[in-house]
């Protein structure tokens, strides 16, 4: 099925600015879904609020555009009651990790089979460029005119300590990686996290003088390296790309169905 068939024409034109990284993510994600040969009826896409969260409107799946920060909680209810469906949850960094941080760590801890895709542009785009928990120290933003004093955290480290059983990172420059990683994340049985470093030229780029979207993507190329490549020896500050965690642990809805079997055997108790 060509990628266009996954798109809802009537939701277009999209709201994203020219050069925004989110369109690249959408493209890479649809390609992954196409290559996996998933039927549109078995995909539920759940999103929260923000530029990135508008993705759910544009695709022809079962789509749930919810409230800020809570997409994973809504998705958990869908998955619990219909475990055979594929749940994909695109989120921005603020949506997933500021207001939604609690749901993120607990969905990871439960190891419920959801695919969380975090488009990390280090800024609140929709509200006009305020700093996010991923902005990091020394960044200019609409609410940080003197530059940020907050520190960020590493999504991969957080995912790991919270219990995610799959975690990977790539960038909008590495479009092929986006597709291959999302494919693996969807196939993974358990909570999977995909961080995609994405550009917001309109705010983060402009406020921090990083140039246009091409120049910002060039930076993703320059400032990252594949896990295991020896580039890191030359420059310790390079951010790693690739799969950080991939392990098997009992999945939440599977464990629940085992519990149901036990409970049904004990029906007459109480």
């Amino acid at each position, binding site marked *: 099925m060509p990628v266009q068939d996954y798109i809802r024409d009537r939701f277009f034109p999209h709201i994203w600015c020219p050069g925004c990284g989110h369109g690249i993510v959408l493209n890479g994600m649809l390609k992954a879904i196409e290559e996996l040969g998933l039927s*549109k009826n078995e995909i539920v896409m759940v999103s929260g609020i923000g530029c990135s969260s508008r993705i759910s409107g544009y695709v022809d799946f*079962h789509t749930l555009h*919810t409230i800020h920060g809570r997409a994973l909680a809504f998705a958990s209810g869908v*998955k619990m009651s219909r475990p055979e469906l594929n749940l994909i949850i695109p989120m921005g960094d603020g949506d997933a990790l500021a207001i939604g941080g609690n749901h993120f760590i607990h969905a990871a801890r439960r190891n419920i089979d959801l695919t969380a895709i975090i488009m990390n542009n280090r800024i609140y785009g929709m509200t006009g460029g305020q700093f996010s928990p991923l902005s990091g120290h020394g960044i200019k933003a609409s609410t940080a005119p003197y530059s940020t004093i907050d520190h960020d955290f590493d999504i991969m480290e957080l995912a790991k300590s919270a219990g995610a059983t799959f975690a990977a990172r790539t960038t909008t420059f590495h479009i092929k990686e986006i597709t291959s990683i999302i494919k693996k994340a969807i196939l993974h049985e358990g909570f999977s996290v995909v961080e995609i470093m994405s550009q917001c030229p309109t705010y983060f780029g402009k406020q921090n003088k990083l140039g246009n979207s091409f120049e910002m993507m060039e930076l993703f190329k320059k400032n990252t390296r594949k896990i295991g490549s020896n580039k890191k020896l030359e420059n310790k500050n390079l951010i790693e790309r690739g799969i950080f965690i991939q392990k098997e642990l009992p999945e939440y809805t599977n464990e629940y169905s085992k519990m149901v079997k036990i409970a049904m055997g004990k029906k007459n108790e109480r």
Partner: protein
Amino acid sequence: MKKNISFIQGNEACVQGALYAGLDLFAGYPITPSTEITELLSIRLPQKGGYFMQMEDEIASMCAIIGASLTGCKVMTATSGPGFSLMQEALGYAVMTEIPCVIVNIQRGGPSTGNPTHVSQGDVNQARWGIHGDHSIITMTASNHQDVFSVTVDAFNLAETYRTPVILLFDEVIGHMREKLIIPEKDDIELIQRLKTTVSEGVDFRPYLPRDDGRIPMADFGGTHRHNVTGLFHDMWGFPSNNPKIVDGLIHHLVDKINNNINIIAKVKEFHIDDARTILISYGASARTARHVVENRRSRGERIGLLELITLWPFPSHIIREKCRNARFIIVVEMNFGQILKEVKTCIDKPEKVFLANRVDGVLITVQDIRTILRIVQ
């Protein structure tokens, strides 16, 4: 003893009602005084192949039940004041997106942590107006376990009929008190099931298009009709819109679907109303005390009656107005600063004949409290 007679807490009566109504999925977070509901469902739901989820907070609980309702499940959550406050945003989402769900609030004293193990009826207005934006909502309560059971069944039926969240506003005394409950036989109470679309695959499905009778059929997530659900104003396809005509149409629909059916939705119980010169209006645990006063005085020949509210919202103004027409005094008995009193005053021709008997100290209102007010006004 017959198998379907039990001596239980109100919280358990609520659980029994929910299971009778066909509850499929419950998501919750422990909080006094509603925890027994969560605990009991963690036993019972897996036994019937249903779904029980303990979430990380009340926000997640509310969100999870909405998600599950979209796959066709009958869903519920239960909480108390602080958790109910946390649920408000997602509750508003359920109103906007018209998702059937049931929310139980076993009221404690508030604001804030307040008085977790003591009784209050302070969340009546929060149930009506806790979420932002204009809307209408159904809220019901009960004063005894048989009614707790039946309003819980009603709540599920109304949620499906009107595609709306329904709030069950019980209080600590009702939740924790032990009393007899007779569980009706299967089929004794009619159950309303999810109305599913009959539109066939490949035909344009409009998830927000009402039928002639006003009900809006749904299509489960995972089925063949893929559609969009959003908390933004939306058209009948679920497509976001800020077209003033569409916005106006939707907000009116959300309010009218409940307010225009108040005659069907609103329920009130009457005790000795026909010739009453003095009418007490009460609900929940307060109504038990009020009933006691009324029965006592009736037996001595006083023309006094009780209107017990089962439906709090939409407020049954038309019934109150009609029943209180000939009363000389109306006393609203409640455990707050007069949240229902204000509603009663606005629907009665002579507001000056309406008085309040209340208590806000975490203690169940007593016969003496009501007697004192009666002595002053009569």
